[in-house]
């Protein structure tokens, strides 16, 4: 099992050097993703899930910087690569799809051009072969009449079609690892289901590892094999999806699951988590969830709970787990 690890993130730390002082957006995050596996990362807005993904791609913009840790892709530490080698990795072995299909494609270039560009960058092919590859990818993701769509501009496609085109582009160079950053958030529920199914099918077909980021627990339970719950830039809990949903151990995970509206029942009010996420520069020195936690202890305030393995494959960072 160990040698099939494709991605291994070790103690990743990303900070933003703002005027109010450095802010750790990602703090000591570690996880592995195996071949063909989907890891779901859940958390509220600002919990560091997107920053984690961008750190993996090394696309953190100024004033942010990756300040520590390792990102091993098939055993190679991406954080040590020179920028030119990293460009080979981006869009090649490792690809990413984004939240907003409306704005993630360049409005003044045709869909075909944008896919060709990536194929030509990473594969030794002629422009004609690149074009064939692009059309093949467009039909693979279920876009009807791909030869015509190839010549279309993004605004001529619907949201769902654009996200399909995004996926076609991301997968055009056979990545081993795909990062999906809330790819269905901006779409209608029906389109959302189609896109999730498409990602799952393609993943099985190409035996890709996927890191799927969302704040939607429903989506996570559908698509991922394992789940990582993040809060305040830190890991709370990670476990197999079934285990996590049936047997959450971190109070935050439990609260998240409890606040999902349940089908069939119409409670007077939805369950919520009291309080709000502290601003990144106001994080307490101990557990980031301290001020909202129903099970807090005194030590939680001053000391950060270490990540401990409760049972094989189930890790929790909590002094007082459920």
């Amino acid at each position: 099992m160990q040698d099939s690890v494709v991605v291994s993130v070790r103690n990743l730390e990303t900070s933003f050097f703002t005027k109010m002082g450095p802010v750790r957006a990602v703090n000591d995050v570690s996880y592995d993703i195996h071949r063909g596996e989907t890891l779901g990362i859940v958390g509220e807005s600002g919990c560091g899930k997107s920053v984690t993904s961008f750190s993996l791609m090394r696309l953190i913009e100024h004033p942010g910087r990756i300040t520590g840790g390792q990102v091993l892709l098939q055993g190679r530490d991406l954080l040590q690569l020179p920028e030119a080698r990293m460009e080979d990795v981006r869009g090649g072995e490792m690809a990413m799809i984004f939240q907003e299909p409306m704005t993630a494609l360049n409005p003044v270039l045709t869909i075909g051009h944008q896919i060709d560009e990536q194929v030509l960058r990473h594969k030794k092919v002629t422009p004609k072969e690149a074009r064939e590859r692009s059309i093949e990818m467009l039909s693979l993701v279920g876009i009807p009449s791909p030869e015509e769509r190839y010549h279309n501009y993004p605004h001529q496609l619907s949201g769902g079609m654009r996200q399909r085109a995004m996926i076609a582009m991301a997968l055009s160079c056979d990545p081993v690892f795909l990062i999906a950053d809330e790819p269905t958030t901006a779409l209608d529920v029906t389109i959302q289901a189609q896109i999730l199914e498409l990602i799952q099918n393609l993943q099985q077909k190409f035996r890709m590892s996927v890191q799927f980021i969302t704040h939607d627990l429903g989506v996570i339970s559908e698509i991922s094999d394992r789940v990582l719950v993040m809060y305040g830039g830190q890991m709370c809990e990670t476990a197999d999806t079934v285990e996590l949903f049936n047997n959450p151990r971190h109070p935050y995970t439990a609260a998240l699951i409890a606040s999902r509206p349940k089908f069939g029942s119409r409670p007077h009010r939805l369950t919520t988590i009291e309080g709000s996420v502290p601003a990144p520069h106001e994080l307490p020195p101990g557990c980031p969830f301290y001020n909202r936690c129903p099970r807090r202890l005194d030590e939680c305030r001053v000391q950060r709970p270490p990540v401990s393995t409760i049972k094989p494959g189930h890790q929790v960072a909590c002094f007082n787990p459920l």
Partner: protein
Amino acid sequence: MLTYILRRVLQTLVVIALLSYVVFTLMALMPGDPVEMMIASNPKITAEDIVRLREFYGLDQPAWKRYANWVGTISQGDLGYSRTYRVPVMELMGPRLLNTLILSVCALSFSLLVGITLGVLSALKPGGRLDSFFSVFSFAGISIPSFWLGIMLIIVFSVKLGWFPAGGTQTIGMEGASWYREFFDRGWYLVLPVMSLSIQQIGTFMRYARSAMMEVLRLDFIRTAKAKGLSRGRVLWKHAFRNALIPLITIAALSLSNVFSGAILTETVFSYQGVGKLVYDSIIANDFNVAMVSFIISVSMVLMMNLVADILYGFADPRISYS
């Protein structure tokens, strides 16, 4: 697309016609007429002469009738006769217009090239050292009055250093020389006026290019382009600049008429044989024919450049269609 252009050209012509009538009427309202100039320069003139001259030049008729006459002759290709220079307007303005056009186009191309490049560079690191330096430079350029700048350029580069001629359009007696010698000679005389006109424009273009670029660089598709593994240069020029170009097109197109009118001052400072000074003189001297023609040229230029900008939009931005 073609019908669109045709329709726009027709609209433009209508606007020019309407505006020419308005301006003609306004000029008729100005105090004085050419005959008064003649009275002033000829003490022996009699009252009958004055009436006869007024009749001869049609100045006794109402403005709308004179306008109709003017339109009649101009539509036959006859631009009229300059009363102050005593030559046909065409002959007077033709070569000067060409000179001004050369000056304006050179200044515009130069300032677009430099301004946009510097603007893009400063957008890369807003607030950085390069950006701050260019900002000071561009604000200085925008704020310095062009006549002062022109004089300073003359003092430094022609009086002190002697690198460029202080004024004029070409060396006298160069007309017969081989074409490339004439070409370089004229280029030599152009350097300082072009500089003087450009420095202001560079500042403006730099600011616009900078903000357009900064706006585009924040957009999601730039991140997508980076995530595809494209190099920095390609992301910048192919993906970002291609989008930033869209707002810049209008600014560039409308600037040609700006530069054209800005040339009046520059031409005066460098005694460049352009149309700028002529326009000023003709209005002061009540030289209707010259003033009307130069007015029509400036108006048409603004309107035509607007049209050009709109057409270029269609090419730069696929989301705009004219069908």
